[in-house]
């Protein structure tokens, strides 16, 4: 079984690196999940992580890209509410990667 090591503890993930148990999430776990994706978390990364966590609390959904961008536009303004800004911080599939690092449920429609 796949796992990451955080502060000496082994934390189970699925083969794609999503947490098996969402209760395992902590900021230190997020740092490690990001490191696995080659990302060093800065303040601006954390701002987006907190944004998707708020999104999840508010709607009960792991975000898809387009609604997430719209949400970011409303919350953080046009400078940050665009896909380039998200791609710069979380390359590839920003919504999916952010869900993983922020400890949100794996989107159930992702093939």
């Amino acid at each position, binding site marked *: *079984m796949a796992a990451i090591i955080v502060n000496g503890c082994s934390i189970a993930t*699925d*083969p*794609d690196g999503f947490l098996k148990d969402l209760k395992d999430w902590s900021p230190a776990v997020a740092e490690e999940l990001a490191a696995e994706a080659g990302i060093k978390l800065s303040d601006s990364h954390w701002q987006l992580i907190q944004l998707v966590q708020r999104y999840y609390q508010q709607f009960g959904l792991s975000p898809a890209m387009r609604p997430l961008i719209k949400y970011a536009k409303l919350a953080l303004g046009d400078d940050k509410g665009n896909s380039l800004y998200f791609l710069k911080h979380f390359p590839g599939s920003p919504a999916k990667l952010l869900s993983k690092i922020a400890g949100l449920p794996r989107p*159930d*429609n992702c*093939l």
Partner: protein
Amino acid sequence: MSLSFALLVSGQPCTDQSSLTALRFCQAALDSGHQIYRVFFFNDGVHCANRFTTPPQDEIAVPKQWTNLQKTFDLDLVVCISSALRRGIVDKKEAARYELDGHNLADGFTIGGLGQWVDACQNADRVIRFGGNAQ
């Protein structure tokens, strides 16, 4: 005039007659020279794709019938992934992804997203749903 049909199957095959009706509709439409653009299995309809379905020998196994029809007419049978995962219908790939100890998707079906249904709605001439709102 020949038409193409998109079918949404949302009824549980043991509980609900609708999936068998859908099957018969497919057969009749194809026999009359129409096309089936895609059959999309959604909500409880995903149980139609469970190859472990084992009714008594003198009853019909719905998944087997779909598999046979698919083979004959090369049908596009797509099972909604989010409906399927909730109900324990998985192919080999999903079983590996979720570390499950088996897979049960019947031959002839593929697992796909809701986008496949949206595409079918856009491109087929007619859209029909089998499996009503049982209250």
